[in-house]
């Protein structure tokens, strides 16, 4: 009995030793994302964006005293159960100092309310866009670099109005993201004086959407606004609509932004007939150019939805750790606002060495990220930038910032 106890004591001492040794040279940041589940295909470039930020930082001197920034991946499955479980794991088992994520708004809502706010850990989401996250009672612990749907919905309505659309039909996939966006769009378009002839909700992943489309068509609708993920239902809806000759003009939001839309429907059919808004960047902005060049080299498209957001979120967390000068969770939370907004030395993507030097010299820094200036408002939200994308002559998406 005594012997087992001694072994146990020995084992736990060793465990504690291994634990402290690991903490001394490695600073862990949680990377919570819906790796499996309904947006699995969107998550890969987002996670790659987060990872690229960590890789650049580690190559340029690392955090604090040369410590390595490690992104610890956890799967939130787009499900609040899994989001809470993933948050618990990274906060308690991995002892992360802050979290980037979670992906979906539902998983994020569960994770922050049940885990990270009580534990006092900062969660900076790169793709949760639900308006309900804005007014969480979060002790300044929940931030996001992705703009709330309230902004994109209004942007796409304005775009449609400016392009001369007055009468539209609309359909949306019934998930947290698309339903919210569609709601804002409908209100904003009507507010501008437009008419929505028909508004149909649809379930994703059906084989055919002919019945929904036949309800939607007619009544003089000039085009169809689709709020869906391209893989879930967006492409199928467009194909069905074109086959039956019901609609030729389409408007969509960033869940539809993917090259496969053009590849599967055909560039000639879509040219001049589709506009997609996307949470985007000013593509001429030096911050975006710096990010895009590096990200392309990793083999991903810099325009992949929310990939640049993932990069910015991870970079901001790193800046906050550096600014806080410690891995103390509360200090990081306090520092995040300072590094994101003015005043201070402007830091752009990839400029880790410059940021490190400025912070070491006691200067303020102001991160101007790949997706915009990332200045948080009182709720930890950003207004964000949006682009409109059309099919270019080369059969690829061509984007322009909405100004």
């Amino acid at each position: 009995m005594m012997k087992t106890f001694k072994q146990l004591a020995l084992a736990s001492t060793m465990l504690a030793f291994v634990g402290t040794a690991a903490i001394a040279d490695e600073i862990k940041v949680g990377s919570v994302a819906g790796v499996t589940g309904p947006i699995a295909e969107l998550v890969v470039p987002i996670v790659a964006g987060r990872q690229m930020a960590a890789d650049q930082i580690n190559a340029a001197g690392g955090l604090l005293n040369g410590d390595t920034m490690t992104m610890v991946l956890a799967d939130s499955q787009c499900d609040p159960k899994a989001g809470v479980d993933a948050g618990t794991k990274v906060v308690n088992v991995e002892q992360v100092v802050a979290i980037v994520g979670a992906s979906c708004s539902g998983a994020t809502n569960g994770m922050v309310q049940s885990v990270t706010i009580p534990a006092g850990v900062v969660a900076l989401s790169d793709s949760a866009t639900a308006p309900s996250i804005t007014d969480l009672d979060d002790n300044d612990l929940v931030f996001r670099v992705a703009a709330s749907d309230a902004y994109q919905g209004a942007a796409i309505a304005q775009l449609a109005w400016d392009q001369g659309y007055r009468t539209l039909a609309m359909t949306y996939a019934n998930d947290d993201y698309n339903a919210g966006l569609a709601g804002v769009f409908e209100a904003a378009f009507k507010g501008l004086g437009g008419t929505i002839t028909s508004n149909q909700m649809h379930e994703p992943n059906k084989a055919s959407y002919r019945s929904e489309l036949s309800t939607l068509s007619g009544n003089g609708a000039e085009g169809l606004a689709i709020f869906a993920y391209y893989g879930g239902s967006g492409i199928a809806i467009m194909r069905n609509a074109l086959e039956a000759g019901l609609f030729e003009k389409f408007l969509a939001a960033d869940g539809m932004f993917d090259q496969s839309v053009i590849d599967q429907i055909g560039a000639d059919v879509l040219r001049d007939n589709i506009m997609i808004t996307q949470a985007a960047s000013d593509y001429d902005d030096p911050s975006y150019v710096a990010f895009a060049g590096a990200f392309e080299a990793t083999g991903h498209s810099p325009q992949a939805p929310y990939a640049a957001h993932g990069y910015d979120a991870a970079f901001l967390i790193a800046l906050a750790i550096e600014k806080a000068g410690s891995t103390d969770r509360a200090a990081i939370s306090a520092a995040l606002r300072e590094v994101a907004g003015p005043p201070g030395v402007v830091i752009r993507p990839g400029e880790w060495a410059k940021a490190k030097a400025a912070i070491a010299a006691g200067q303020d820094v102001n991160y101007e990220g790949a997706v915009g200036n990332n200045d948080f408002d009182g709720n930890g939200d950003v207004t964000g930038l949006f682009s409109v994308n059309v099919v270019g002559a080369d059969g690829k998406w061509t984007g322009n910032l909405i100004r």
Partner: protein
Amino acid sequence: MDQLYGYSLYGLSLLTFGGIYAMLALGLNIQLGFTGLFNAGIAGFFVVGAYVSAILSTAPSERHIGGFDWPIPFSLVAAMVVSALIGWAVARICMRLRADYLAIATLGIAEILRLIFKNETDLTNGARGVSYIPKPYESLAQPWNHVMMTVVVLAIVAVLYFMLERARKSPWGRVMAAIRENEDSARAAGKNVDRLRVQAFVVGSAMMGLGGGMMAHHLKFIDPNAADPTTATFLVFVMLIVGGSGNNKGAIVGALLMWTIWSATEIFTSMLPGDLAIRSAYIRVFLIGLMLQIMLQKFPQGLFPEKRLETGSSG
């Protein structure tokens, strides 16, 4: 020391999730284990319980109906009552169906229930879910809030276990086993088989509603994705079958064990570099399926085989 403290908190989380799943598995055990009712619609009763308890206990909100600010114990009782009522209605309709037909019908009903909650946006805020659900003892300082939540969950599981063990050994439980083994002979012995099957279904549904309610309070947020059939129906089946169908202890151990495997495997897969970490996330789903295969092939009785009751005479 921080690390050990972290492991302890994670252990509490495993017990809380596992305990909530144990409520679902115990509910399924009454239906499938005791009485042989193949209910493949656990997610439906789960989502009913979760939403009823969530909406009754949250503070008023303009995003969904109510917020009625009820104390949690009352909202949980209401969740059980509503789930039981729905279970009763389903049972009245489906009880004449046998085995796999019942499974198909309940699977469909679960999906209908989930889609109702997803689509009745005015009542439930639809796909955007219900926020600010209160959690028992959440105002206590860490770690006591986690400790008390775990204690509450395990206490409920203990009470359920005690009651179900009593039920199993009672004449009621014996009749249930008789119905499962040979319905005709139970009928010939003068038992009202249909009525008893409905009873088992209703009691099981109520416990699933309770599990759903507890899950909503634990997550503090509920949306229709939480009733995804993979983790709200399929996983519960695996838990019961691994633990031992027909054995209450098996249902509890199976739930705790399978949840631990489901959750903790990620700690290892997330250590893998880059793309491998993303791909290996799917291995967890595969592992659960593999586990089910092995258990069904090699140990169809589960870890804790059903204990046959002594009949008193060996005739």
